[in-house]
């Protein structure tokens, strides 16, 4: 009887242990939509990059410079991306953001992009190679490149305010478009993102 009572006392412990152990699970991976936001922290993520680029390009193309250029030149404007400086407190994959920008502009069909310096040099090397090795019919001529009409540049800034487990992060993206002939700033866009992160001091 004495041992039975002891066993009974051990039952709740055994139940709790079993529950605790069953709560532990091994690594689980699932495939999700690339457009679905999974915000694990307040850091800049893929969704921010996508939202900012879409909003900025939509704003950029609503300004009068596109129609003015079409009227004057009769062709779609060509844009070159100069530099987007990351002046925020987070490491931001600027290339990903730039690619999102390019896609948004190209999808609109209202402007073209000119390749940047490194890519242009690679293409020129390829053309030089074609001159030596490709047949005359398939060769691409040198000196036929399209020059950029406008230069796009900008910065990404951020501010952080923190108190205990609560943190507010504010990202501001500023972009500007400069007319390469006149140096006129034909567009200036700004997009702000604010994120609130709350962390608990204790958990299980």
């Amino acid at each position: 009887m004495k041992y039975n009572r002891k066993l009974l006392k051990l039952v709740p412990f055994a139940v709790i242990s079993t529950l605790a152990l069953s709560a532990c699970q091994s690594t689980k991976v699932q495939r999700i939509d690339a457009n679905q936001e999974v915000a694990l922290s307040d850091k800049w993520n893929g969704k921010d990059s996508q939202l900012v680029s879409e909003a900025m390009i939509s704003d950029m193309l609503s300004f009068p410079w596109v129609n003015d250029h079409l009227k004057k030149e009769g062709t779609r404007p060509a844009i070159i991306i100069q530099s987007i400086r990351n002046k925020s407190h987070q490491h931001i994959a600027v290339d990903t953001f730039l690619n999102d920008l390019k896609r948004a502009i190209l999808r609109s069909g209202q402007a073209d992009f000119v390749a940047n310096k490194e890519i242009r040099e690679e293409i020129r090397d390829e053309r030089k190679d074609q001159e030596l090795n490709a047949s005359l019919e398939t060769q691409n001529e040198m000196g036929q490149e399209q020059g950029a009409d406008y230069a796009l540049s900008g910065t990404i800034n951020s501010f952080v305010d923190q108190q205990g487990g609560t943190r507010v992060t504010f990202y501001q993206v500023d972009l500007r478009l400069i007319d390469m002939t006149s140096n006129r700033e034909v567009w200036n866009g700004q997009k702000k993102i604010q994120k609130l992160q709350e962390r608990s001091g204790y958990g299980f």
Partner: protein
Amino acid sequence: MSARIKKAVTLCIVFIQAFLLNACSITQFNHLSPAQLAQQGDFVQAKQNVIKSYSKTGNDRLLYHLEMASLFHLEKNYLASNEQLAIAITLIESFYTQSVSELALVQLSGPTYSTYKGKAFYLPQIHIMKALNYNALAKLSSDNAQYYYDAALVEMRQLDVFLNQLKEQSGGYNTEQDNDFLAKNVYQILKPIFAPTDLLENIDYKDDAFAHFLSGVLFEQSAEWDSARLQYERAMFMYENGFAKQYQLPEQISEQARSGLIRVMRKAGGYENELRALKPTNTGETTQSANVTLVQNIGIAPKRKQLNLMLRANSESKALVMTPILLGNYKERQAQMRWFQMLHADTSLFDIMQNYMLGDLGDVAMGALTKRLPLGPLWDDAVKLGIVDALQFGARISVTYLEPLDNQVTHSEVWLNGQPLTTLLPYHSVSLLTLQDALKQANAEIHAALSREIIKALSARKALDKVGFEQNNLLGNLAKLTTSVVNAITASADTRQWQTLPAEIRVAQVSLPQGEHDVIIKTYFRSGHIIEQSEHITANNVMSLWHTRTFANAPSEQAALTNSTLNME
């Protein structure tokens, strides 16, 4: 049970516990630690040692990434180093939420069974190392230089966020330390309870002047004058308001921060009134000269080690008594005794009076060798709770102590064209930072260890009572012995630390003609040994930052090799 058998069992327990304490005094690393191996230039073995000692997913995962990051940094594999440091930062962020179940586990086992979460001063060191890595990458890669310089500044901005929060919590160095009346008054009241000397006064890690200074240099390098001005200004005020005194740094460094501030104010323009107030002196800079900042990380920070104490209940004086058990070589035993006397022993006037009032005249004289916690009227409660009985065979308490600081470097100099150019001055002492952190934690640690061991002893005793070993016979005593031994095994102190951190950081700012130069850094040791490290550096028109690591005990062959390069980028 006869008195002879009881005596034999007690002797047996003391013997086994002493044996276990000896075994526990062995560190995790069987031979040389990663830091010692890195010091000898054996990075392959050092990394293998880290892989063997720490798990990527275990309780010591933070240390795995920190030590690996340091080793990659020393190997000049800056990208790999930054990958490890990025994981370390993510881990530290995740540690903000404390696990209640883990806290409970620690209470029933020991601190070594918990996840290692690092120290507050690790995060600035991580950001600094990451920034130095990016800076080195920028100098190695002309195509991506701008990206890497920007990435270094991202680290400095993250560090600024952390330091702002730290300053809010601690008060920072906004005013001179001596004017902190409230803190001083509170300290005066608590002083007799904590430590016998002024040891624990003004030792909080409140902000980081060196981090702000380095931040100023990096912003100046990227021609961001406003940010550079703010960082130099913060560094200057902090060095003046107590940081230099707290870490025993020379007074000239606040002057160097002031020079940086004046320089960036001139470059930015529009600060004429502020410049007049700063009273700039002629620094000899010309429009053709370029500024170079050299950062030298020296040695390795002191090790945390284990100090063992035996806890017993003394029914005569109705007190719990802790006595240190000194283990290791002569130097270690001496250090253990000094640490105990400095922080825990009954050597304050308050303690001596307390022992005297308890009528325990023997302990008035023995105060330097024991720590007595008089229970007075609480003694009867302790007996009822079973604490006195649970401590029948004593319990092992383990706390950490820091090995004595060993500053082997007398000075270091920058040489150019066979002539000494300037002296590298100490800008931060990571050794003192580590020591002050250990001192600050010492009392909390011993109290936590004490309550943990009492709880463990009580739980074990209650468990024995439940299963019918309450009898005071041989079997009962053997069972008590077993639980006492098990508790002793799990009572290890938490000596985990980031071992490859430097002991000291020295800096020199020099003005050189624009162009390329071969500079030599000569480090002079007390032993008379001199290490020379040379490197080809480029001085541009703004500011350029270069860093190096110098190990005090580098073998002579390696010291000779440093004439080409050791780790300067």
